[in-house]
């Protein structure tokens, strides 16, 4: 098959590229020893450049008192407050919300059952009950209101955009660029300006969440539509379907499960913003986390983090079940049951509206206090037992790997690093990579934060390599083994949605305040998404293909490396890309535990008015690093594909 011929070609081509790259690196190291310390463009912590001061002076220019922003704020704000009045906050002159806990649980379970199946309905009821027992009912409902608002508004924009980007190559290119920007631009950078446009509170928090959460839905919708086999599209066309018919009858149904993965990712991203949004007074669980961290109360922070995770798991399972449910009309029996259920829900809502026992969750939060106490003692135990050992690991990795690598990047003259980066990009990805690389390095110099960018780049690259290695291993394992997948998924969801703020304190205790701590936190945050996408890709490999390989006596390793990985190549490229972007999105959080550099600059800009311009420039520098790395990996991946002679993807691209 293609695998065999492509191997032959790889044998010829690949060594040459790696040799060139290797020679480049050797030349760089040699030049570093000669030119060390010249033109390193260092900038002190409190120092600023003319650009930063200019940004500082002009920050109030945009949008103050703008009618459009005002309108958006009022609309979004009212929407969120309406949801809050319904399920979380005392409203309409009553001491309780319109719908109490019984109504919310019944309604949520009913929806889960109607759109998914009875299993997720039970899970939903259990999950909500658990949150109530934790003593976090009201906070959770605040968070849920905000998340529902942000996700609905995101999807309203994202799905049409995704379809457009799936159908048009040009839109796809523009969208990819904008999405990279939206996902890598640290939230902290636009958090402060957002409060200028949209004031403080739920509206601004929802909009910040929306900006962060919409990209996965756009990206995966576009990805899904582009992955529909061209044969199916051509078949539909040849049968005389119009463009609209092809879209609604072929493209959308065939890409439905991936679109649902996109919706799912959007929900996860929205929930991961809960704590950050709390910095501008978003109501809900994020507040509890932040307040607990002020006194380093890991237990209480973990308890509310756990509530976020439970919400995430419930929403994830329900959307997944909804995605898996075949599109067919319900039979008579199910319809009757649905009707009966609806009546039951209405009764429950009426109860929860009328009676105190059904309105206020009957719990004094004993379970939550218990969880908090256990977490605190576990965390203390881990610190006591592993404390010394982990410091050793940190010092070993930092001295053997991070410091030399960072020294090479920061100690070389900027023009040398820039030349090496552009040359490497050209070797790995051709001009498609070299041109963006040149532009990005040029702009990085212009931000005035070259040296900080190089420090961040060093940590980012190391973290990404670890993330990709771990994500591939776990993803292949989960993709090949259904049972592993079932067990690992709650952990992945937890890793992705547990606010990093919660595990910062134990990590600080284990590794001290250092760049290594930041790398570790980024890895924990980025591995889940990489694993999920890889597992999804491996699972999508047609069973027949795997069976064929097995029947000719291939070993498991051969099946993985010659069949599953190559066939799932697109998913893997996407996984690497997302892993990278998730690592970059943690740069600012890393700045809170000692990573310094760009992450620190951004949060300093958020905190100190005269460093605002520098913070904005640092945010842009993070975006530039993201675009640079993304372009190079994408172009390199594309080139590898071309070498392998797999012209299926290319030809499809040409036809569209």
């Amino acid at each position, binding site marked *: 098959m293609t695998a065999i011929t492509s191997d032959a070609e790889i044998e010829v081509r690949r060594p040459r590229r790696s040799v060139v790259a290797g020679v480049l690196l050797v030349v760089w190291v040699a030049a570093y020893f000669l030119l060390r310390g010249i033109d390193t463009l260092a900038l002190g*912590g*409190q120092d600023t450049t003319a650009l930063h001061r200019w940004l500082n002076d002009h920050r109030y220019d945009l949008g103050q008192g703008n009618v459009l922003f005002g309108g958006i704020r009022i609309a979004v704000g009212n929407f969120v407050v309406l949801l809050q009045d319904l399920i979380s906050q*005392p409203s309409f*002159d*009553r*001491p*309780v919300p319109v719908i109490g806990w019984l109504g919310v649980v019944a309604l949520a379970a009913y929806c889960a059952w109607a759109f998914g199946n009875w299993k997720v309905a039970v899970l939903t009821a259990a999950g909500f009950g658990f949150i109530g027992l934790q003593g976090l009912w009201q906070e959770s409902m605040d968070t849920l209101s905000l998340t529902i608002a942000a996700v609905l508004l995101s999807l309203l924009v994202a799905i049409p955009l995704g379809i457009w980007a799936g159908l048009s190559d040009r839109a796809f290119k523009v969208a990819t660029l904008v999405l990279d920007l939206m996902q890598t631009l640290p939230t902290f950078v636009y958090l*402060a300006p957002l*409060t*200028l446009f949209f*004031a*403080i*509170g739920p509206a601004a928090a929802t909009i910040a969440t929306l900006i962060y959460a919409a990209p996965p839905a756009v990206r995966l919708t576009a990805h899904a539509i582009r992955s529909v086999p061209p044969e199916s599209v051509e078949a539909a066309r040849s049968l005389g379907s119009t463009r609209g018919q092809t879209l609604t009858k072929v493209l959308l149904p065939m890409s439905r499960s991936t679109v649902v993965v996109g919706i799912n990712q959007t929900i996860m991203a929205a929930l991961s913003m809960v704590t950050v949004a*709390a*910095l*501008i*007074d978003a109501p809900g669980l994020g*507040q509890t986390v*932040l307040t607990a961290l*002020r*006194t*380093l*109360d890991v237990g209480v922070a973990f308890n509310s983090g756990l509530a976020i995770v439970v919400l995430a798991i419930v929403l994830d399972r329900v959307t997944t079940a909804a995605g898996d449910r075949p599109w067919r009309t319900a039979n008579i029996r199910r319809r009757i049951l649905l009707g009966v259920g609806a009546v*039951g829900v209405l*009764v429950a809502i009426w*109860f929860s*509206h*009328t*009676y*105190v*026992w*059904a*309105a206020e969750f009957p719990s004094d939060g004993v379970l939550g206090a218990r969880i908090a106490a256990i977490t605190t003692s576990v965390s203390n135990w881990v610190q006591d037992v592993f404390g*010394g050992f982990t410091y050793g690991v*940190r010092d070993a990795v*930092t*001295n053997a790997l991070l410091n030399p690598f960072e020294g090479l990047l920061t100690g070389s003259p900027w023009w040398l690093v820039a030349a090496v980066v552009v040359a490497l990009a050209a070797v790995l990805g051709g001009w498609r990579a070299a041109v963006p690389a040149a532009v990005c390095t040029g702009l990085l110099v212009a931000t005035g934060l070259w040296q900080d960018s190089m420090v961040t780049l060093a940590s980012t690259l190391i973290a990404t390599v670890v993330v990709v290695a771990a994500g591939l291993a776990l993803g292949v394992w989960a993709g090949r083994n259904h049972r592993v997948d079932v067990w690992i998924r709650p952990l992945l969801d937890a890793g992705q949605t547990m606010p990093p703020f919660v595990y*910062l*304190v134990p990590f*600080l*205790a284990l590794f*001290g*305040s*250092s*760049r*290594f701590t930041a790398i570790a936190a980024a890895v924990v945050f980025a591995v889940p998404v990489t694993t999920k996408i890889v597992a999804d890709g491996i699972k999508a490999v047609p069973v027949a293909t795997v069976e064929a390989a097995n029947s000719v006596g291939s070993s498991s390793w051969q099946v993985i490396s010659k069949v599953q990985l190559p066939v799932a190549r697109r998913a893997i490229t996407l996984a690497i890309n997302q892993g990278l972007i998730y690592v970059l999105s943690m740069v600012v959080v890393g*700045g*809170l*535990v*000692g990573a*310094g550099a760009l*992450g*620190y600059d951004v*949060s*300093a800009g*958020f*905190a*100190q*008015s*005269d460093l605002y311009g520098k913070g904005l420039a640092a945010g842009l520098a993070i975006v530039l690093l993201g675009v640079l790395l993304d372009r190079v990996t994408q172009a390199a991946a594309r080139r590898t594909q071309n070498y392998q002679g797999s012209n299926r993807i290319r030809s499809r691209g040409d036809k569209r």
Partner: protein
Amino acid sequence: MKRLRYAGVLTAVALALAGCGGQKIADDKPAAGGKDCGTFNLTVSPWVGYEANAAVVSYVATKDLGCKVVKKNLKEEIAWQGFATGEVDVNLENWGHEDLKKKYITEDKVAVEAGSTGVKGVIGWYVPPWMAAKYPDITDWKNLNKYAGLFKTSESGGKGQLLDGDPSYVTNDEALVKNLSLNYKVVQSGSETALIQSFRDAEKNKRPLLAYFYEPQWFFNEVKLVKVNLPKWTAGCDAVPAKVACDYPPYDLDKIVSKKFADSGSPAYDLVKRFKWTNEDQNAVARMIAVDKLTPDQAAEKWVKDNQPKVNAWLGR
């Protein structure tokens, strides 16, 4: 099937009976707020000392004046912006911020000063108590170079490490290290959480640590950090940031309110203006919140009960 249906009907009836037996929700709220106080928005900055101020003031305003207090958890800079947008009325502990005062008070005229809180702020370099006991002369800055080797870490590039905290802190540390010719590198821990955790670990495991910190701070109840004396502060010695070679000045922490709130004639404004206590008072409340894990309201109630004369003075009684 039939049995199931019966079970369903029975459950529904049982539920209905149980429900109807429960207490109904009252339609009207208990009389909302006092007549002349109304609502004010109080920003709560992210440190426990501030939380103590906010707890006591909002407790007194709610209980004695019948006001409705809306607390908003905000970073300082965002809170200052809130004076302009009308989202924030009161800031109960402001650390200097001359630049922001200039913008929002002098230029935009959206905020006004409301006097001192009586709390004195101290900023400086601190070491854990075990170090001060073992190396008594470390508290003099002149000896810091002697001990630089102790403070070396994986982050400090061969020099001693001076750990800095949250980016919102007021700091001259880079200039100080340079101007006092200290063989140290300023390393950013990036957050107060990281800083406190580092001190906790340093004291517990006897690791050397030199770091920026401030008083009043609840953490002093747990570990009594020792301040390193830098060259004494004199008026004007810190006028040019890049040339600073002296200690941080003592801070008189003050209150800021929005212009709108100051002109409203609300009794809450008089309360905020008269509110004044001491480091010990604030520390007592902060301790109850941070160490004893009381809610801010419980802590405030307890303190108010023991200090009624002070509260009466704020209320003008």
